[in-house]
């Protein structure tokens, strides 16, 4: 989307959101109290699940805005992968990474509604992150703006929401059934050259001026050195019940890179860069050659809003332009206007260039993931525990068309969702975390920014349940400045504002950028 159109859409959406609707509680079931585990199972347990969430063709490919095309088929199928962790106290946490373009509070609650009773995963223990592929379906958002403006195909689909919710819930259920004693290891590695800052002019307005990390290769251009290139992974090995030995089962990893390498003219559903990285590691862990490997790699998006993949400029398609419609424009007819599409040969050229870039970047990152996964084999530990939630879940308040007379009535569950502050939370309304505490008393924290789409944030931060990784030595939470939200659009519309660097803990966390979910602290 061109900057001017992005700004226009953001402004109009904000105006609509302000004008329309009262708020109501978009609620969902909390997790039940953990059941006490049988004696002798005082170890970490982990399970994995997977669901094919590829919709049929015809849906809009969301993420590119009006340039997003209608799907005509698929290239790489879309999956939702689930890693379910259970600590010795029976606390469960479901991490879901779905090959979808944008997060949806509605989808999150629908899934939680299905998994709370059956698997003990309520909305306080369910994280749904998306890869942000722009080649995934739209139409499943609680935000009318996203349903209507995510692609050139307009509308909300209750069928799609139900389908996605049931499939993801089925994957969570499969992961619960797969729970087995497990060993885990966290690790990270710095990977340069695959991602770069997307808006250098905006970044350079930061005060103090941004500086590249010491280990950034001098050979790289500045835009490639001003990111946090940390690729973080949680490796899980499961115990084989027959042999009693542990075997590699899967991983959850985080890297800050925008989830799309495909060109906006692409007409195929596709898991994009993240799909390649996921598959590359899965086929390394399970080299059987099965179409769907038995291994699982959940590749979550880090703070990727302003971190672009290293695609070449020729892989970005030109934008449609306003042009008079000349066919049958006779001597006495008035001019008509259209959004003139780019010529087909130009579209083919940028699609092809983008695919080459996707394969190079995806396979390269996949190889790096394999190296990291293999290096963690010696650090596996089966005594890790999950922290208990220190704050109860506070549901976001959202606006509903049914409660807003005069605004567009529809079956959409909400027009706009608005985050609320966590009561007593000292982290502000930017983000919250849960914390992974290992038995070695080395707190490692996974930060999950649950972005609830709102009038401003749905446009500015993409409304995605995003995850980010914080380094081991974290300053006290109240002063923590990190945000995991996407900021690309924010910077476009407010370039003079100082802002954070995605993937790096920055200075400013806009109060408008993200919502709050919940927070875990070590016991």
């Amino acid at each position: 989307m061109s900057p001017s159109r992005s700004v226009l859409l953001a402004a109009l959406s904000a105006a609509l959101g302000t004008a329309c609707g009262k708020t109501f509680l978009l609620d969902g079931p909390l997790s039940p109290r953990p059941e006490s585990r049988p004696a002798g199972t005082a170890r970490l347990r982990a399970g994995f699940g997977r669901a094919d969430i590829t919709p049929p063709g015809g849906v809009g490919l969301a993420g590119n805005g009006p340039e997003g095309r209608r799907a005509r088929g698929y290239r790489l199928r879309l999956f939702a992968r689930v890693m379910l962790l259970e600590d010795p106290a029976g606390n469960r946490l479901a991490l879901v990474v779905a090959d979808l373009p944008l997060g949806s509070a509605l989808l999150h609650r629908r899934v939680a509604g299905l998994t709370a009773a059956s698997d003990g995963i309520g909305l306080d223990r369910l994280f749904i992150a998306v890869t942000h592929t722009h080649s995934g379906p739209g139409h499943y958002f609680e935000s009318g703006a996203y349903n209507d403006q995510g692609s050139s195909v307009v509308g909300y689909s209750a069928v799609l929401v139900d389908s996605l919710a049931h499939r993801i819930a089925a994957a969570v259920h499969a992961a619960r059934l797969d729970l087995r004693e497990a060993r885990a290891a966290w690790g990270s590695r710095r990977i340069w050259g695959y991602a770069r800052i997307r808006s250098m002019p905006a970044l350079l307005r930061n005060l103090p001026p941004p500086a590249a990390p010491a280990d950034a290769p001098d050979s790289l251009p500045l835009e490639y050195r001003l990111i946090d290139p940390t690729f973080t992974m949680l490796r899980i090995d499961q115990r084989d019940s027959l042999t009693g030995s542990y075997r590699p089962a899967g991983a959850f990893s985080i890297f800050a890179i925008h989830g799309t390498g495909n060109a906006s003219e692409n007409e195929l559903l596709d898991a994009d860069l993240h799909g390649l990285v996921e598959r590359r590691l899965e086929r390394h862990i399970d080299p059987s050659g099965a179409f769907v490997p038995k291994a699982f790699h959940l590749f979550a998006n880090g703070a990727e809003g302003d971190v672009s993949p290293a695609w070449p400029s020729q892989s970005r398609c030109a934008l449609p332009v306003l042009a008079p419609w000349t066919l049958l424009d006779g001597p006495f007819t008035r001019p008509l206007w259209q959004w003139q599409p780019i010529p087909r040969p130009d579209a083919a050229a940028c699609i092809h260039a983008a695919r080459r870039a996707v394969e190079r970047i995806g396979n390269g990152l996949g190889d790096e993931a394999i190296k990291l996964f293999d290096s963690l084999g010696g650090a596996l530990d089966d005594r890790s525990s999950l922290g208990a939630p220190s704050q109860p879940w506070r549901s976001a308040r959202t606006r509903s068309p049914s409660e807003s007379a005069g605004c567009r009535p529809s079956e959409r569950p909400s027009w706009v969702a608005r985050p609320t502050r966590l009561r007593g939370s000292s982290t502000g309304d930017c983000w919250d975390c849960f914390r992974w505490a290992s038995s070695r008393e080395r707190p490692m924290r996974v930060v999950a920014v649950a972005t609830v789409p709102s009038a401003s944030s749905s446009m500015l931060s993409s409304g995605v349940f995003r995850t980010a990784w914080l380094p081991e030595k974290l300053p006290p939470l109240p002063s923590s400045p990190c945000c995991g939200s996407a900021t690309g659009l924010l910077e476009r519309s407010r370039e003079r504002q100082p802002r954070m660097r995605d993937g790096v803990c920055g200075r400013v966390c806009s109060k408008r950028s993200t919502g709050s979910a919940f927070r875990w602290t070590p016991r």
Partner: protein
Amino acid sequence: MVEDASQMTAIRRGLWFLLWAGGTPLHAQAGARFDLATSNRYVWHGLSRAAGIVLQSSLAVGYRLRGFTLSSGLARHYELDRVSPDELSEVGNSQGRLGEDDLWVQADLALGAVRLRSGVARYVFRGGSPQGGGGSLGNTTETYLALGAVTAYLNPLLEAWWDVDRVRGGFLRASANSPVFGWPIEPFFFISLAGEIGLNLGQHPDPARPGDLANFSQRGLTHAGLGLDVLFRVSQRPGLGSANLNLELNGQLNLDDATRYNGAGRNKNVIFWLSAGVTLLLGGEARAQR
């Protein structure tokens, strides 16, 4: 033998033409357009021809082969309100409402951003002279040649018209339109500005040809106009076409006595008129239009 050879050449050329046409993308072939508009004034070449409630309908069909388009259409001009004797009207006191039929045929060639088009327009006036209308004595034919460009912000067009029948003389029209705003999400709407000036080169009274009709009073600038157009894409049916609503506000500065003429004994230096219409596009590029 010579005849056979020429036949073979014709057949060969025909086959090449079919191959060329067959290779043309489907989305760029036959299309049709239907316009229905109402306005409080009918203005042609800067000349006010009817005032009051007028209704204009037109049908056009065309076929595009790559950048070349052949099209033809018929526009009919109706006057819906009762006409007083000194009022601008083509119908006059005749019984019918139909004032004018315009039939046109046009060839259009697009070469990148440049557009070249040429055509013939036949004007048939339906009102009867005794009743105060234009009458068939005014029937005439014009040819035209136009050169235009389609750019991101401005679309200029220069048209040269030549009356080859009753008026005999040239008229130049320079116009440009510019998109001011386009809403990128369905339903689309567009706002554009348009301006034009007219220059008469020979369609004024000529003492050497007293039998000819005249459109203007003298050589030189005839008018300068400005318009604001709002186009709303009401419906878009992929594979079929689209329906569009159009609202247009026009203003014109009249610089020639003929363009100032506003009915018996009436002159207006500046005129404004409003028009609203619907346009249906079927087939051709309209099937995948955005």
